[in-house]
């Protein structure tokens, strides 16, 4: 596959997006987007099954994946997950627990996040529902960027959905509008480096930038939080922020509407893929 042809895909996608925008036409549907991304990556990685995409850059290096498997045999951050479990199970002052706020006690729900809530015309993330649970039960909400609370509660809470296939719904005009905000951000160049998410993670997925293999967008949202180096907890929004900082852009806040909508669009791309929370990354 020649470089020019590969770059052509991004060009096509971006051009189509911009053209439609200017002409005021309807954009491609979420399903069409997801299909375009998958086609792009299948072109670049013809032998890799879609299921492998949950491993991101690791699927492109046997050496790296082997280290991941070895560490995941008995993860060094197990104590953080256990602290999360203790927090999840600890009753609120009113006697209820987090499990009471979610369907199935929180089992196999994370794959449906984010979802669109028509009542507030906003997208809701799993972390927002953690806070809603706290709020509804008279407890103080967690800060979205606090590893010691939101970090560890999701380090455990999200594992209750391990194995669940991502199933993000975008139905109706309201939901679609938020989805499109997220997609727009995905393609927006930002920061001193003037890169968009698309710049690195579409046609350049699989290439090496500063010793790192760039991962494809499909599969990226399935495995959070991660523990970098085995002990540094990072939620998805913390990672979005760090990426923005690396582009020398002032990052949006964790839990901000911008990042929520980005997560909505971004997660849709992983529909059908299995989730696994609290994994090792370098």
């Amino acid at each position, binding site marked *: 596959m020649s470089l020019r042809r590969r770059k052509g895909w991004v060009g096509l996608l971006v051009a189509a997006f911009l053209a439609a925008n200017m002409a005021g036409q309807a954009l491609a549907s979420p399903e069409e987007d997801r299909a375009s991304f998958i086609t792009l990556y299948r072109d670049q990685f013809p032998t890799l099954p879609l299921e492998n995409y949950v491993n991101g850059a690791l699927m492109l290096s046997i050496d790296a994946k082997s280290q991941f498997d070895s560490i995941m045999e008995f993860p*060094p951050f197990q104590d953080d997950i256990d602290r999360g479990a203790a927090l999840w199970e600890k009753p609120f002052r009113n006697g209820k627990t987090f499990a009471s706020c979610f369907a199935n006690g929180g089992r196999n729900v994370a794959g449906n996040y984010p979802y669109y809530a028509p009542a507030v015309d906003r997208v809701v993330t799993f972390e927002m529902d953690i806070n809603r649970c706290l709020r509804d039960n008279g407890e103080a909400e967690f800060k979205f960027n606090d590893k010691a609370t939101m970090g560890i509660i999701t380090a455990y809470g999200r594992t209750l959905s391990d194995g669940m296939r991502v199933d993000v719904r975008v139905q109706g005009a309201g939901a679609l509008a938020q989805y499109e905000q997220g997609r727009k951000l995905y393609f927006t160049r930002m920061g001193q480096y003037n890169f968009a998410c698309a710049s690195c993670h579409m046609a350049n997925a699989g290439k090496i930038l500063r010793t790192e293999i760039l991962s494809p967008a499909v599969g990226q949202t399935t495995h959070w939080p991660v523990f970098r180096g085995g002990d540094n907890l990072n939620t998805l929004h913390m990672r979005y922020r760090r990426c923005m900082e690396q582009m020398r852009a002032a990052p949006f806040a964790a839990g901000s509407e911008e990042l929520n909508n980005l997560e909505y669009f971004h997660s849709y791309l992983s529909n059908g893929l299995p989730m696994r929370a609290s994994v090792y990354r370098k």
Partner: protein
Amino acid sequence: MSPRRNFLRILAVGSAYVATFAAGWLRPLQSLAADWNKAAFEAIVLADALRNIGAAASTESDQIQLKAPEIAENGAIVPVEITSKLPGTQTIYIFADKNPQPLVAIFEIEAGLEPFISTRIKMGESSKVRVLVKAGGKFYVATQEVKVTIGGCGG
């Protein structure tokens, strides 16, 4: 029969630990402080570390299977797995040649223990991982180069 752990007691620092210590099962730990090869662990020069474990001379052996990454994802947590097929394996030593102090760990293989150890080590920079095995009173060695990079956009 499916192997299953059916009894587990965790002893933290404190009275529960002291009680069990008195019961005798922790007796091997009594002379701990004396049993730490300070000279070898604190040696900065590889040759000194080797000398301090008694391995001034060693023979390369393909009977030592060393499994370590080609490129460590993160130098703080490098999985290393060692299997010694040398008869009479007594001790396994792990070094990272270019660490500030090259000797990383010593595992004494007592009766009944398979000459197999898997653990995770820290490497400060790209270096040979060096495994020495003392077997039948003699030293044998195997090495593998492991690259350590500092991540760029990895975060």
